[in-house]
């Protein structure tokens, strides 16, 4: 006993001694770094300001990133705001997790790209700058934002993302579609029943292993069917006039029953649970899957290029309309906040310069660079027309993907349009057939419960579709959804939604 006591006392002493020295080291480090930026305040000093940027799609060794950074630095120097961009390397595979660590550790770059994930802590701890005043004053960035972008920024002004809403639309190969007899009826009246018949015929005529595949989660097929089953928003009004979580209603059950039928009959990929985005796409290119959903615009463009590359010109893709039923539309658009986008750190000493980078990228010159690459490499201007080269295939925009304010001085050569026809079509169809959702920004104290209740739903839905839980378990699921914290969230929803 005596020994143990001695040990404990000794350890306590040691620990206190260590912690003291640890603490000192810490402070010394914190005050050391930001001396280079002081010169930026004086306007006549044209030393470039160093801005740190972290972005998943800008790996520092990548030749395209190096080209992009160099072009940004040169372009901005010409305009009189010389900057130097220093990329903070973060592994792309687990980006959102690594970014969380980086920020939590107090290593906060000036410009931060967020991609999905839960960043409540960043807002709670006030490390993100409210971008509203900057955007108010801007010319180009403001003009590049769509209405939906602006609406999202109203309730969550920390992220700006001048890109089309990342909403998915379902696509099918044109040649296969043309082979079906039921396709025509489908386009005229895309009811759930017509879709079902179309799926059955499509599987037969195409020789695909199954019709629809998704990368693990059901929302990718929900884009087609949710609204038809009456799931028109995250929260729907029940009979008593109170809002309930749509996925706990009868409409959800009907929809899942339908999916279960598709699954059982081999129309939905039997291995959809373990599919990831790459295996899903591969299944489509290889002709194993006939329909997949992809983000409108640029992604549809990539699908089109690759499937044509692999299967010939006739295999170009066509966008399918959402099913018609109780309502019609793709998945309702969450306008509560941007889930990805660029943020400026409130700790940054060069916020204006950081914003200047965003503004530059939205300017005509910046957009040419961001979207098309470097003249002479990714594109050429011949006979007054923009001709994209082969290298363009590996170039994609990092800052401004929206076409709202993209007006190149020259036209595109008809042989190389900026976006392929299916891609343009996907954007038109989405705009024509999208509705707004009534999801709201979840307060921090409910965020955990919301996540937990969603996890309950995801698990149940997956198991229901594959037939591991039965129809009578739905009531049990609703119960466990409530128990996992869904009830509190629903109560809160009724205070927010009018």
């Amino acid at each position: 006993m005596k020994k143990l006591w001695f040990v404990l006392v000794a350890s306590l002493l040691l620990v206190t001694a260590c912690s003291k020295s640890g603490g000192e080291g810490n402070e010394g480090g914190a005050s050391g770094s930001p001396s280079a930026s002081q010169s930026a305040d004086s306007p006549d000093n044209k030393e470039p300001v160093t801005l740190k940027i972290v972005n998943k799609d800008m790996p520092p060794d990548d030749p395209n990133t190096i080209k992009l950074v160099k072009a940004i630095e040169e372009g901005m120097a010409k305009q009189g705001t010389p900057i130097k961009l220093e990329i903070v390397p973060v592994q792309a595979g687990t980006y959102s997790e690594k970014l969380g660590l980086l920020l939590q550790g107090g290593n906060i770059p000036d410009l931060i790209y967020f991609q999905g994930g839960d960043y409540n802590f960043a807002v709670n701890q006030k490390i993100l700058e409210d971008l509203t005043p900057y955007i108010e004053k801007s010319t180009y960035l403001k003009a590049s934002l769509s209405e939906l972008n602006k609406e999202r920024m109203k309730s969550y002004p920390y992220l700006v993302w001048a890109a089309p809403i990342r909403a998915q639309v379902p696509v099918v190969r044109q040649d296969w579609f043309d082979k079906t007899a039921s396709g025509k009826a489908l386009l005229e009246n895309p009811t759930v029943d017509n879709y079902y018949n179309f799926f059955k015929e499509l599987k037969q005529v195409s020789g695909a292993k199954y019709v629809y595949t998704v990368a693990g989660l059901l929302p990718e097929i929900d884009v087609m069917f949710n609204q038809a089953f009456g799931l028109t928003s995250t929260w729907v009004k029940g009979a008593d006039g109170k809002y309930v979580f749509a996925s706990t209603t009868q409409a959800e059950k009907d929809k899942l029953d339908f999916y279960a039928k598709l699954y059982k009959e081999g129309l939905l990929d039997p291995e959809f649970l373990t599919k990831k985005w790459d295996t899903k796409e591969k299944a489509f290119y290889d002709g194993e899957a006939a329909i997949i959903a992809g983000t409108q615009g640029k992604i549809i463009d990539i699908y089109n290029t690759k499937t044509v590359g692999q299967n010939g010109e006739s295999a170009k893709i066509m966008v399918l309309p959402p099913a018609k039923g109780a309502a019609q539309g793709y998945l309702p658009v969450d306008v509560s906040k941007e889930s990805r986008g660029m943020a400026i750190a409130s700790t940054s000493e060069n916020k204006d310069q950081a914003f200047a980078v965003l503004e530059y990228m939205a300017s005509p010159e910046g957009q040419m660079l961001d979207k098309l690459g470097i003249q002479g490499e990714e594109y050429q201007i011949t006979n007054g027309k923009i001709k994209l080269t082969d290298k363009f295939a590996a170039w994609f925009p990092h800052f401004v993907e929206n076409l709202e304010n993209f007006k190149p001085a020259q036209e595109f050569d008809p042989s190389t349009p900026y976006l392929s026809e299916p891609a343009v079509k996907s954007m038109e169809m989405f705009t024509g057939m999208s509705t707004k959702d009534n999801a709201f920004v979840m307060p921090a104290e409910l965020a955990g419960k919301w996540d937990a209740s969603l996890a309950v739903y995801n698990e149940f839905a997956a198991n229901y579709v594959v037939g591991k839980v039965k129809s009578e378990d739905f009531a049990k699921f609703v119960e466990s959804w409530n128990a996992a914290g869904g009830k509190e969230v629903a109560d809160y929803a009724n205070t927010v939604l009018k």
Partner: protein
Amino acid sequence: MMGYKLKKIWTDRVLYLMLLPAAVFFTLFHLLPIYGMKLAFFDYRIIGEDVYVGMKYFKILFSTPVFSTVLANTLIISAMKLILIFPIPIIFALMLNEFHNGRFRKAIQVVSYLPHFLSWVVIAGIWFEFLSPSTGAVNELIKLFGFPARDFLTDKDTIRWVLVISEAWRSIGWDSIIFFAVILGVSPSLYEAAYADGANRWHILTRIVLPHLYVPMVTIFILNVGFIMNAGLDQVLNFTNVSVNSRIDIIDTYVYRVGLVNGEYSFATAANLFKSIIGVVLVLSTHFISKKLTSKGAW
């Protein structure tokens, strides 16, 4: 007395100096993080000083419904592994001892020790292939007998068994070494004497071999109880997926997700502190129990 000790320390000063690097490592990479666990009692701040909040995070922890699930999962998975896997290496060693053909025994040993040296990432890779519903060997076999293929990895009813069996798969050969060594160490004269007295093989097994195995069996079993709070972070991280996570989410994966992925540093540290303290108490008490029963402890 004190003076003598000081003098001895002084004469042994070179020895203490030799221990210094170890002390530095130990301080930096063990004691500092342990001191850092005080974060469980503070609100973590990225900018500025952390704020003392007392037991706040422990209260939240014990009122979070998910935490009880996670704790239950940890204990269930550990208990399954502990009870079901424990006898296997012993039986394996006994079986192996039946064979005196050097080449056969050697071949079995060489292959069965190998999985122990593979990382869980590699093992998961092997098992994904092994269990794949479309191409895996297991399902090929199931289909051969006319049953439908089954995806064991996304099935809530089978996933814990996948954890237990893959753990057994990894450790059966390796963990049998200790028992095998003990069996080989039994003096041949004991057998001869027993046979001379007319004993049959069953008598030999129960009266001679098993009593020899008693000490390592008890020690190892008890020590494994001590590590029951560790249900296998590396394994679960590599085997989990959305459709089964609620069945195999253990404290370690929970801490990782809440702490590192969602950035709830203080909360995660509180959960971890809870786990660690129980762990230390368990290891120490099992050590003393084992010492008492077999005079052998963890160290």
